């Protein structure tokens, strides 16, 4: 298992209710490593959909509009963004790092402790910074 995969496994093992964790390169759209109990991140579509959502122009546009700066077209990925997406059954947490070039995504059951999730992701990012090319 890659070192990135090991970091992901640690995140999942330390969080009660965590299902999968993966790191995606938002520049190339590739999955750099993952630990997955449910197969949700093994699919090639996961990395593609993640890049499309978090690395694409659409999110940048929404952030710029939200910042009240609709005229500037600067990439919003440079921001250290924390994103949570809740659906009916599960939540996904994403933390963008490396100046917007990579993201760590955690999929968890809704019962997971949200504060613990962010604490774990922040801790893992400091280790991943040096591992992501």
């Amino acid at each position, binding site marked *: 298992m890659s070192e990135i995969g090991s970091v992901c496994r640690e995140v999942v093992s330390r969080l009660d209710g965590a299902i999968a964790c993966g790191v995606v390169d938002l520049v190339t759209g590739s999955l750099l490593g993952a630990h997955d109990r449910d197969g949700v991140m093994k699919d090639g579509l996961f990395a593609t959909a993640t890049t*499309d959502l978090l690395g*694409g122009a659409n999110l940048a546009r929404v952030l710029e509009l939200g910042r009240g700066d609709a005229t500037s077209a600067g990439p919003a990925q440079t921001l250290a963004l924390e994103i949570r997406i809740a659906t*009916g059954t599960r939540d996904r947490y994403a933390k963008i790092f490396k100046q917007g070039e990579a993201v760590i995504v955690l999929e968890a059951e809704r019962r997971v402790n949200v*504060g613990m999730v962010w604490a774990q992701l922040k801790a893992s990012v400091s280790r991943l910074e040096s591992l992501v090319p």
Partner: protein
Amino acid sequence: MSRRVLMVDDEEALVWATARQMAKARPDLAFEGLTSPGEALDRIRQSPPDLLITDVRMPGMSGLELLLEARTLAPRLPVIVITAYGTAELRAQIRSRASVEYLEKPFSFPSLFAAVDRALETTMGFAGSVVLPMLPDLIQMYALSRVTGALRITRGATLGGIWFDGGQISHATCGDLKGAQAVYQLLRWEGGNFRLEPGATAPERSVSESWQELLIEGCRLLDESRQGQEPETAADAFEAGPVSEPGSPDLDPEGIPVWLRLRPLITEFAPRALVVAARPGTGASRILMGDGDPALWGRALGGLVDRAIAFTGEAPHGVFECTWANVGIAVFWSAPARIALAVVDSADGHIGVSRFRSFVTRWWLASEQELSGPATGGER
């Protein structure tokens, strides 16, 4: 549409008995019995039936006079003449006319039904139903087929008619309108029922334009009126958006759109927030609170929701929430309801958006069993 049989006989008991027997033996036919030939003529003038059954001797107007009048209005109308006073001369007179059956009283109901079947077969052609997206298609079809007859069109309580004479339109009515204006008005209708009465001739000539001219001008006017109705802004488009069906996720139990309900609550939770409602995929958007460009927000939110749905594996509902610095953005979406609601709080992003998200999550997604348990974890 059922085929209509109109019977007129001054013997009320016979009309009543025929109606009962007809309903049992030929339930697919729409039977109407009248005792007055004058009333029957009015009914035929209004809308010719598929078959007329008439007695000969009646007060005010004889059956033969009625037949002549009816044939003027609907030349191919099949008729069954019934009489208790049959003579060789009468039989000859009746048989000289096309599509007229003759029955002597007293007659058996099976013999009447057999006569009805024969009479209707003469005008049967191909029967069925067709749904056409546009009335011009139907007009063009009849015109090119060089039809003579009346195309009766109804929409709700409004009646319309277009009379064809060898394929050319000779007369048209639509409510109180007549002539070309009636055709143009009919072309604006986006739905209704139609029925062709083959052979019916126009009571007057009110149209001088060719059918091609009428269609071109009618479609031009239709385009103009549609352009006039087109929403000019994203906000108008939002208001003009699809009307939600009862039970739709964007309606509360009282049928009020959730986004409308939420406005006062947003004011309470995040008084300085920018709140945008959008219909993903349409560009339609509306600023509910604060200042913003609805068109820009409509496009941006639509794209974001599409990607969020793909990212979550086609989740029908969801909340996209992100925070940085002191700004928080939460986007709630409902794919079935085709609606997205964005709250941007730059004054106290974390708290305002979190409180609002908790509230909406409970309300909007409460129907999902998975969310019926206690709230998860602590807030950031």
